């Protein structure tokens, strides 16, 4: 196995004080903690630094590690092998349920990684059910409405016959049924943590989240879409084709429409009993560019109309 330079992992000198080690660990932990970081390989880096800190924060373990390091710590093949007769005086043991996924190198130095112990007799089998694994799946509104297939990548814990826990990346293709609601929990049987000794494998539980949609907003079962219209379209009325959850639909914007005016398409919202509605919200917008000809037409309109939309101003 490979010799691990814990000082290098934490970015400190071998003569670093306990305070310097703690400071370095905290700094790196903030950067790579899997609950916080989005950096690539954050989890792996965090594991390495947690292992390094576990050893270097403890005077006894650090002393033992330093001794090994000073002795070269290498076998003939360039690989690390503990010296013959090596036995740590500072065995590691974690609280139940708090097993950390430390490396083989750590194990060779300080013993088993967790609170589990090797079965004593040949027939003394350990039986353990796999853990349920929880995750989230963000889907677009259309995907929830119509159903979809998604590839999910999850990390599942796996314990060997000694109870040592490692994590494996699993890729699953799952079929999300049409009409699944936001917040629903989907269960995929047997795809959580693996069992040992004939136990039952855990399940994968995926909580459905609604991914932000660029066009639609959702309020309960109702869906809304803002439809921009040009001033003359609002004044004269127009027909526009809009996307809905089901299919493109042609709607009539009535003459004289105002910003904020709502048109209701009954039953075209989210499924349920009763079904949700689809709201078209009119938004009058100015074109980005107004050419000279258009300007002249507006000028003509201004002179003819003379009406002010502001109630505090004098009306003609």
């Amino acid at each position, binding site marked *: 196995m490979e010799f691990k330079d814990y000082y290098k992992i934490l970015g400190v000198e071998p003569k670093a004080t306990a305070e310097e080690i703690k400071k370095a660990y905290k700094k790196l932990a903030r950067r790579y903690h899997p609950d916080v970081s989005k950096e690539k390989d954050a989890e792996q880096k965090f594991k390495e630094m947690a292992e390094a800190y576990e050893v270097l924060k403890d005077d006894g373990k650090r002393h033992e590690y330093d001794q090994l390091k000073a002795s070269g710590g290498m076998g003939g093949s360039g690989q690390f092998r503990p010296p013959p007769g090596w036995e740590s005086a500072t065995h590691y043991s974690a609280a139940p349920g708090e097993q950390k996924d430390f490396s083989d190198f750590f194990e060779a130095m300080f013993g088993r990684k967790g609170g589990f112990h090797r079965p004593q007799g040949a027939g003394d089998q350990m039986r353990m059910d796999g853990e349920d694994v*929880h995750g989230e799946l*963000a889907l677009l509104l259309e995907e929830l409405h119509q159903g979809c297939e998604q590839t999910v990548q999850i990390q599942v814990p796996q314990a060997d016959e000694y109870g040592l826990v490692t994590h494996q990346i699993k890729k699953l293709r*799952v*079929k999300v049924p049409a009409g699944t609601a936001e917040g629903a929990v*989907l269960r995929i049987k047997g795809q959580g943590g693996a069992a040992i000794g004939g136990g039952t494998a855990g399940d994968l539980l*995926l909580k459905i989240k609604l991914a*932000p949609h660029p066009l639609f907003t959702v309020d309960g079962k109702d869906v809304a879409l803002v439809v921009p219209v040009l001033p003359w379209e609002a004044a004269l009325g127009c027909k526009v084709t809009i996307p809905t959850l089901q299919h493109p639909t042609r709607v009539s914007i009535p003459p004289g429409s105002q910003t904020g005016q709502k048109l209701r398409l009954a039953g075209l919202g989210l499924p349920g009993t009763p079904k949700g509605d689809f709201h078209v919200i009119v938004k009058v917008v100015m074109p980005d560019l107004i050419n000279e000809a258009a300007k002249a037409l507006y000028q003509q309109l201004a002179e003819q109309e003379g009406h002010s939309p502001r109630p505090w101003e004098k009306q003609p």
Partner: protein
Amino acid sequence: MTTLFTVEQNGEELWWSLQELSNSSALQPEFIVQCVELGLVDASGVQTQWRFNSDGRFRLQKAWRLHRDLEVQVSALPLVLQLLDELGELRQEAAYLRKRLQHWEQSQG
């Protein structure tokens, strides 16, 4: 070839009492009580009636890891989790908008 897994809707939400949650997740009851008092997870009634769903369990475990590994003070956990939630949503939105922009740029040739 990738296997396609069909899912079943978890109609009945999973629930854990304070004791069950503590036993099955290595979270100390005192820590859970503190988190409930701080409003980090919802629980109503007296302690013996508290019920936590998978969402609450996930949140409490995350809070515990942040407290244990990063030494985040318990009193700061609700704020930290809220900020992390918002950060996650913003990252997701940014990724989605980037994707859309890419599509738009491609469609413009």
